[in-house]
């Protein structure tokens, strides 16, 4: 795949005349690799923990590795370890490409990377030690919060600086999404920390604050960053314009406008005011507007001039178009299952885990992989060591993701249906969903295999490029 694309040259690689990195990219290389290597390490750790937690559902346990600890650590490390580090890197690179931004203070970014990952390590260890909170993705001890916020600003505030200082008047859709995402997260994170952990709001208002925070984190920061990458790589690699590009600004504004209102749809039936729940339902339906426009932009671009087959033959686009399709599916599913009738069936089941995975894995993570296949060869100046590993990576993660998401959705629906009937006992529901435990174990193994393949390839390439002999190499 890497070796045999149409130009005969591994894509993403600088053209022969351009043997040295541009100055902009050279400045970026250090912090980029620091983020990227941390991201991949956390991905591996989270995948192993995913395996452990799938096993624990079958009843193995101990004081440190209780299911609650393992699943919380897995969730936090996957999001804050893998996805955040990866988007710190990608957003920085996108910014430098689109705005001709020179990163003069690379050391500040590296400092941010170090603080972020040290604080995260401390947070994860605290979870295992039993020092954790009861709100998902805010489980780490509250002292970690402000440190992460500072590290975020050091690592991810640059796109905003670059945008404000950019020399030309013109700007791109990718830039808006990166700027918006980088701006929203620290704000939402600090407010949520305050209202949920430091100075808790009254009773269930904490749950409302939490649901609002989760949507800001997953949709606006992760989703927004991933959309930025799709808006960049799709036209870049295909060498054509986005279909209906004039709609992209509508997509941007509707995305940011409605995402913040969707959160409380996850609290249907909870002891919070009914109007707050209804706002969430309406928000999720309105959010579809941005999903539809991005679908027109992405799938429209891919559907003209045999775009799909070109995308299939490019490693980067194979991952990225997978992600683009996943985002559309996510938006539709999210709107449908925000309606009270459907939500009543699937709420509290594995269904919502499946929905989240659709967003964070099938969309965001696949886009990260695609971007990495494009950017890393440019920054390291070397090739992906093994095309076989690239294939293995794609198939293992694509099948693993589809499998584990469908299993969560299907089993969630099925056990929801069973629970709706009070005559079915809890034990019966548990037996019926036992298949999920074995299936999720299987798919967790597959995902781990894919991630190891990716890590071997990426680390191999980075090591090769930093070896002194690399200077005079021929390839």
């Amino acid at each position, binding site marked *: 795949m890497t070796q045999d694309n149409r130009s005969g040259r591994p894509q993403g690689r600088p053209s022969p005349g351009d043997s040295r990195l541009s100055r902009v990219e050279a400045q970026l290389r250090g912090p980029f690799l620091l983020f990227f290597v941390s991201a991949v390490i956390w991905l591996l750790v989270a995948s192993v923990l995913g395996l452990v937690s799938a096993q624990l559902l079958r*009843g193995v346990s101990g004081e440190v590795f209780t299911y*609650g600890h393992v699943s919380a650590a897995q969730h936090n490390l996957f999001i804050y370890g893998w996805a955040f580090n990866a988007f710190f890197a990608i957003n920085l690179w996108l910014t430098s490409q689109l705005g001709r931004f020179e990163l003069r203070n690379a050391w500040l970014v590296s400092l941010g990377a170090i603080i972020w990952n040290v604080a995260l390590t401390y947070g994860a260890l605290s979870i295992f030690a039993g020092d954790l909170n009861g709100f998902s993705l805010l489980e780490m001890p509250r002292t970690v919060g402000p440190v992460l916020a500072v590290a975020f600003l050091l690592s991810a505030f640059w796109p905003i600086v670059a945008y404000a200082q*950019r020399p030309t008047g013109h700007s791109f859709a990718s830039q808006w999404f990166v700027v918006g995402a980088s701006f929203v997260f620290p704000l939402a994170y600090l407010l949520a920390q305050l209202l949920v952990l430091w100075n808790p709001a*009254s009773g269930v208002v904490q749950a409302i604050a939490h649901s609002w925070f989760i949507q800001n984190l997953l949709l606006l920061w992760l989703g927004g960053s991933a959309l930025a990458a799709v808006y960049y790589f799709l036209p870049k690699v295909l060498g054509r314009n986005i279909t209906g590009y004039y709609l992209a600004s509508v997509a941007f504004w509707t995305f*940011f406008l409605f995402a913040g209102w969707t959160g409380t749809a*996850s609290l249907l039936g909870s*002891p919070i005011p009914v109007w707050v729940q209804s706002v969430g339902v309406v928000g999720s339906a309105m959010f579809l507007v941005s999903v539809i426009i991005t679908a027109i932009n992405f799938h429209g671009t891919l559907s003209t001039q045999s775009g799909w087959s070109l995308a299939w033959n490019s490693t980067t686009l194979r991952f990225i178009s997978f992600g683009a399709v996943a985002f559309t599916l996510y938006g539709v599913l999210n709107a449908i299952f925000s309606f009270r009738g459907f939500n009543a069936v699937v709420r509290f089941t594995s269904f919502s885990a499946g929905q989240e995975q659709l967003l964070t894995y099938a969309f965001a993570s696949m886009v990260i992989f695609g971007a990495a296949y494009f950017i890393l060869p440019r920054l390291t100046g070397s090739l992906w060591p093994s095309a076989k590993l690239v294939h293995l990576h794609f198939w293992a993660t694509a099948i693993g993701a589809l499998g584990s998401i469908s299993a969560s959705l299907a089993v969630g629906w099925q056990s929801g249906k069973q629970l709706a009937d009070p005559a079915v006992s809890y034990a019966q529901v548990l037996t019926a969903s036992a298949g999920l435990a074995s299936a999720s174990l299987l798919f967790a193994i597959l995902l781990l295999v894919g991630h190891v393949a990716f890590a071997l390839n990426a680390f191999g390439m980075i090591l090769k490029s930093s070896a002194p002999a690399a200077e005079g190499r021929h390839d």
Partner: protein
Amino acid sequence: MTNPKLLIAGVFLTVALPFGALLLSSQVQLGDLAPAPEEEGGALYPATVPGLAVQGRDVYVSLGCIACHTQQVRPSGQGSDIARGYGDRPSVARDYVLQSHVLLGDRRIGPDLANYGARVAPAPKGAQTEPEKAATITKSLAAVHAAIHHGNAFAFLYEADAKGDFAPERADALAAYLLSLRQDYSSPEAKLKK
């Protein structure tokens, strides 16, 4: 889209508006809720819980029980929680006002626990003698400790005390906490059907 100030201001509003509309106004709506009597002059509910139960709550959080258990009963139009016996009435915001950090939970791998105490130790019908009371308490405690084990998963809570026949501190506190979980009183927002 070319003016950075406009972009940032717009994005700021998209964060600030839901925050103000959803969070600040629910805080205004719910911030003053306090325990209320079932009937004029009666005892206040939710009742304050004993100190041991407060400690047990920390154990509950620290062991990650929330990964598998919720503590909220949805109204009968929204799911079958009441039909399943998770409670006799839906949970309401007032039920949570005494909790510094609410533990609503968002995943049910195990049953809902909002009324676990009421399920395992129902209020006695009619008067009980002292020995009868003691026997009921022993029986419900035994049921709670059996439930905490989850097969072998949480057996470590009981390992410390090798010689005695009574459970060690953390398990005791956890049991007291689980017994304190009850929403079996009438609240101004949700009356119990008598």
